[in-house]
Structure formats: structure tokens, C-alpha cells
């Protein structure tokens, strides 16, 4: 399992790709940056495929920051 900084940088890259926005902070809100539900689903599916872990999708949909998402990945 990658470390927290590795996960943060991987997620930051992934968000930038999906949202076409840089820079992205770990406390930025995915939806406030222009994300929508379809993009969130794309992003989570990417994450599952890369890490092989199924994090609770509700985290990204309801607490949409990289910091929350990293907590969730590390917990699962």
C-alpha cells in the first residue's frame, strides 16, 4: 500500500487530469473545482483499478477532498 504522501500526489495528479485544473490542494472540494457526479464516478473507478481497493464512494461524493479520500484509502 502506498504511503500518505504517495497517495496524495497520485490523487492530485488524477484530479488534475479529470478536472483540467492545477494546482489542487488536499483540502479543495472536488465539486467546487468543477467536478460533477459522472467525473467522480470515473475517478473512483480509476482508483479501484489502480489500487485494487474499493473505498466507500460516499466519501468522494459527500466529503469530496483529497485529504478525506486518502484517509479512506488508508483505512480500507
Amino acid at each position, binding site marked *: 500500500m502506498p504511503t500518505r504522501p504517495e497517495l496524495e500526489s497520485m490523487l492530485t495528479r488524477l484530479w488534475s487530469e479529470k478536472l483540467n485544473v492545477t494546482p489542487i490542494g488536499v483540502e479543495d472540494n472536488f465539486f467546487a473545482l468543477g467536478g460533477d457526479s459522472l467525473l467522480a464516478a470515473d475517478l*473512483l473507478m480509476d482508483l479501484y483499478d489502480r489500487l485494487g481497493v474499493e473505498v466507500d*464512494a460516499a466519501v468522494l*461524493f459527500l466529503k469530496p477532498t483529497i485529504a478525506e479520500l486518502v484517509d479512506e484509502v488508508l483505512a480500507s
Partner: protein
Amino acid sequence: MRIAPCGHTRPPGRAHLADPVLHEVGDPHAALRALRRWDPVGWQPVEGRSGFWAVTRYADVRAVLTDHETFSSTGGVMLNMLGRPEPARDQQFASSDPPRHGLIRGPLQRQMTTRAVARHAPAIRSFVRGMLHPADGPLDFADLTSGLPLAFLGPLMGIPAADWPDLARWVAMSVAEHDPEAMLPDGPTATLERGHRELFAYLLHLVLDHRRRPRGDLVDLLASMPLRPGAVVANCYSLLLGGGAAIPHVPRAALAELIRTGRYEEWARRPDRIDRAVEEALRFTTPAGHFMRLTKRDTTVGGVRIPAGDAVVVWLGSANRDETVFPDADTMDPDRHPNRHLAFGDGRHYCLGAPVARLTLRIFFEELFATFASFEPAGEVERVRSTWLAGIRRMPVVGRRR
């Protein structure tokens, strides 16, 4: 300006169809009747957003729904999307125009024909029997029927019964965000967003679960199409809302009318005419109250000029009470024929689930009529506070079994 017909000397004040309270405690059918007569294609301003053209006559509603070249679905199809970008445009069958629309819908439709869904009839019947089995005496008919969508969402999408209470709440938040039973303390917009995101999160897990354990159902079919993951989930969302939101309101509103008019037993003792009775219940109740389209070019509807880029909202519940098409339109008549109602819409976006909805309603009414000898009212019927969902949220009755 229309000349007042004899006996009607003044048009009543125009009702605001976008006001959800009208549909809950007002008289929406009186308002729609007046619009059909005085202002059948009329502009309705909406506070804080632009507005929309309200189309209320049957012929005009059909004209809009069957002309996808002029009236686009890509800007969202419900009033709560008015003035907002639709993220699922061209990704979701409900929010796409042909030819894109047909690419997603075609394969789904082949699994949803009358013949294809007939194989689910035994499972639907046993589900409905299980639902009605414990019911007796005082009960809330709205509670009793809240699980009805599961009769087919189980077989068609692999949704487990245990998940339904949460899903039903999120579906209600997504289609009736003003209703006091669905609304969160933060208000309707927050409710809509939360319901929508909860459903997306749930459906993403459902898609992943189908990946691990395919069931040959509609979720597997969508996942096998050349769609991005977000689009697979968005189409599951359409199926779930299409199937889960409206159907319980048909038996609720139909039974409320049968109780009100004392015609329950008359309907119950004629199982041979069940198909016509189901069509009439659909026409009379029309739970999906409206659909929105955006004009792609300047056009006219019912002789009224509408510029490109405007929102046009067709009111299905009004079209289905159009007195020029349905004689005695406010009477629920189980022998009505012909009955070309628009409860499932019309044109390319005609309800994908209509065959399974008809099958489920037929089975439900058969079982209801066979199980219960009578119903008495036991309290006030409360309607849903929503511009889209024309239905009933509470319906205390006393049921007597045969």
C-alpha cells in the same frame, strides 16, 4: 388573445406551476384546466431563474415530445434542472437526443419489451403477495406500497430488498426535494444534491459488485457498453429513478379515487377488464407530472412563437385530462377506450420501463382486488410537495380482507 367562450367571461389568475405547494395543497387540476382553456402555451416566470413555456394541451404536448429535432433533452428533463448545466448530457439515454440516445437505449430496450419482461411475472407476483400478505385493518397505504418498485428492480438491476429503505429516501430527495418528508434542514437544493450523490455512490458500488458477480441484468448490460464509468452509473441512475419514483403513486392515487367515489368493489369484481383499468389508472394518476425540453431553434407550439434556447415544459397530467381528447376526463372510468394517454410520455423517450410497469401494476391490482373486500378512509390523504411527482405521501385507510 383567445375570445372567452360562452359562460366563461374571465380567465382565472394564472397559477405558478413551478410552485411545489400548488401540487401539494392547491388544486393543480383546476389550474391546469384553466391553462388549457386560456393560456395553453404560456410563459411561466421562475423566481431567481429564467422561466419556461408551460404546454398543457394534449395535442401540443404530443407535438413537443415527438419532435426531438426541435425539442432537445440534453439540458435536463425536469424543472429542477432549469438554468443548470446537465452533466449527463449525451451520456445518459434520458438526457440525449438521437442518434446518441438510440445507441444507449437500444440494447436496454431489447431487454425491456413486453415479451422480455414477461418472464419476471412469477417473481413479481410472489413479491406483491408478500407485500400485501400482512396487511389488514388500519394501515397507511403509502407505506404499504412503498416497496413496489423492488418487485422489478430486484430482477432487473440486482438491488437487494434490504437496501430499498435508503434508496427510496434518496430517490424521494432527488425527485421531490421540497417535500417535508424528503427535505433536509439545509433546504431543497442541498436535498437534491445529497440525494443525487448518495444514489451515485450507491450505484457505483452496485456496478463494481456486478463486475465481480455478473447477473445478466441491465446493470451488466450497461457496463458492457462502450461508456465511461460515470456514464454507466448515470444510466443506472436513470433506470432507478424511472423505475423507483413514480410507480407506487399509481395504486395510491387510484385507490384514493376509488374510495372517494365508492367504486372499489365495482372495479374489484371485474378482473377481466384489468388491462383497461390499469391504463385508466395510469391516465388518471399520471405520477410523472412533467418533462422539460430545450428548443434547438425558433419554433411554434400551438401557434405560439418560441425562440431557440428556451425551456419548454410539457405537463403530462394536464394532457391526460384534456377534455377534447378524453370525454369526462376527470372521471376514472375502467371501461375507457380508446385511451391513448401520455402517462409514459411519447416519442423516442417513451418510458423504457412501460412494459414492466404495466405488468407490475396489473399484478398489483389483481392481487389487491383478490385480497381486500373493501377500504375505508381513516384520515386525511396528503399529497407530495413536488412539481414533478404527482402523488401521495400519506394515506391512512382501514382495509378489510376478503
